[in-house]
């Protein structure tokens, strides 16, 4: 994303885009730029994008025209998902059957050669599932092929989202002419500068300082391992939020409004709120197309509270990659949602039956508990996380460090809630500030070889 290809294509297409008189020509230009961007990064990815787009558009037309569209919708989803399974999960499944083979000799054995994961495939597959399902639910019409191709390939959001919905992007592409506004250029460049700052200055430098602790935790004091754990929590947030800011800001330069992906997630007072603020486009997808449909399968409380969140979040985890660490991370969050929901029900019942409320002072624990829970989840998410976990939890010093940091978090939480509104009200953006940020980013970029964590998914 922070590459010559991206910013080169962005600059040239931006000038040509605003010179063109009608939106349909601009859309053609953006489509050509997007396909060129994908082709420059990886020829194979371009073929996959075009094939998937043709397939999904065709299925969308069938679903739209059929009265009973259930079978066409199912076929479309299976087709789109097959591409993801083929490229992303076949090796993982082969590994499972290989290990089972040692116990059951009759099991068929197959070998899978290393397949290169086409860029952006995890994101395009989710976009296409939402497209096909929204047509089935009669929320959108299939639109014309060129708009759908642009939706599938738009280079500003191609590599790692946000996972925008066709329903939101399509009306913007259909407008006769998006008016040129100076404010769009200002807001777009500010967002890009802020994104670069988050990524290159905050995330990369934190990553630089904690990398060796994650690699060799035994060589460091357990207290430092706890710091590295929180450091990674902050790094992954600024890395992905930085990427999202660049993607949203770049789209805004073309007058296109793309949904936000983060809303101060680490300030969430509970795990349910966290998932309304973290990777919003993905959590909205999970909610709309997995959580709600799964919930409808049974009205039993055990199913709704015990199974649905765990299954939905396990799928969310495995979407990030074909590795058990992501699956474990998803299950961790699913269980967190279940426990939080049971706690909510307990509170409601207590008030209704006995008229008793929980002590209000317990509310100060809400934020630290949530932040600690999410941070512990990253132990599984990051490779080499388990040695760090062992180093922290199997030593008295590590446990003491966790306890002390929890107490510190309580004070930090109080301070944040006291100053939050005052700080956000006082910040005013000036053009010179954008330039300063860009200059700092340039210096940091030249000092570090940089990659986005989420572009790997």
């Amino acid at each position, binding site marked *: 994303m922070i590459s010559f290809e991206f910013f080169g294509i962005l600059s040239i297409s931006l000038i040509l885009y605003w010179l063109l008189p009608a939106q349909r020509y601009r859309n053609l230009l953006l489509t050509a730029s997007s396909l060129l961007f994908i082709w420059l990064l990886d020829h194979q990815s371009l073929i996959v994008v075009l094939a998937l787009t043709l397939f999904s558009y065709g299925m969308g037309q069938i679903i739209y025209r059929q009265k009973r569209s259930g079978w066409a919708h199912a076929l479309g989803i299976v087709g789109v998902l097959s591409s993801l399974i083929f490229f992303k999960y076949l090796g993982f499944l082969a590994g499972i059957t290989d290990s089972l083979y040692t116990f059951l000799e009759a099991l068929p054995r197959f070998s899978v050669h290393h397949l290169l994961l086409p860029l952006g495939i995890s994101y395009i597959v989710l976009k296409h599932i939402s497209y096909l399902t929204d047509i089935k*639910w009669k*929320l959108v019409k299939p639109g014309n092929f060129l708009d759908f191709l642009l939706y599938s390939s738009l280079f500003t959001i191609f590599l790692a989202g946000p996972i925008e*919905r066709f329903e939101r992007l399509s009306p913007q592409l259909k407008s006769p002419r998006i008016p040129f506004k100076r404010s769009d250029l200002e807001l777009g460049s500010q967002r890009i500068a802020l994104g670069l700052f988050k990524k290159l200055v905050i995330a990369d430098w934190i990553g630089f300082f904690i990398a060796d602790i994650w690699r060799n935790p035994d060589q460091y004091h357990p207290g430092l391992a706890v710091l590295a754990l929180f450091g990674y929590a902050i790094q992954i947030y600024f890395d992905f939020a930085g990427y999202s800011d660049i993607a949203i800001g770049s789209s805004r330069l073309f007058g296109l409004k793309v949904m936000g992906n983060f809303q101060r997630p680490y300030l969430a007072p509970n795990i349910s709120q966290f998932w309304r603020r973290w990777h919003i486009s993905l959590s909205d997808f999970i909610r709309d197309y997995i959580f*709600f449909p799964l919930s409808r399968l049974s009205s039993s409380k055990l199913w709704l509270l015990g199974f649905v969140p765990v299954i939905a979040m396990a799928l969310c985890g495995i979407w990030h990659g074909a590795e058990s660490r992501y699956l474990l991370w998803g299950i961790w969050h699913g269980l967190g949602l279940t426990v939080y929901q049971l706690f*909510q029900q307990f509170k409601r019942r207590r008030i209704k039956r006995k008229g008793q409320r929980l002590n209000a002072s317990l509310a100060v624990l809400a934020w630290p508990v949530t932040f600690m829970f999410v941070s512990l989840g990253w132990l599984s998410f990051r490779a080499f996380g388990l040695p760090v976990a062992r180093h922290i939890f199997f030593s008295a010093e590590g446990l003491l460090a966790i306890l002390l940091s929890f107490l510190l978090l309580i004070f930090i939480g109080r301070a944040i809630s006291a100053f939050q509104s005052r700080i956000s009200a006082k910040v005013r953006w000036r053009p010179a500030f954008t330039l300063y940020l860009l200059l700092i980013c340039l210096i940091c970029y030249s000092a570090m070889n940089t990659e986005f964590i989420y572009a790997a998914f």
Partner: protein
Amino acid sequence: MEEKLLDFIRDEFLEDPELEIDADTRLISAGIIDSFSLVSLQSYIEREFGKRIPAPRITAESFDTVRQMVQIIQQF
């Protein structure tokens, strides 16, 4: 329709029975109802009014207040 929805929300989801809500109270964005509650609300609407509201319409932008809920239900 508004009254029925308000009664259901008061009975099922309100943590504080003394909290007063009306047709314009923000429910999702204020954290009064969450995704689990929305699943029950979706089933209630289907049972009571015979309308199935697709999940992408049940958002903080379009389904936040009872007044907005009524508008969405009438669209389907």
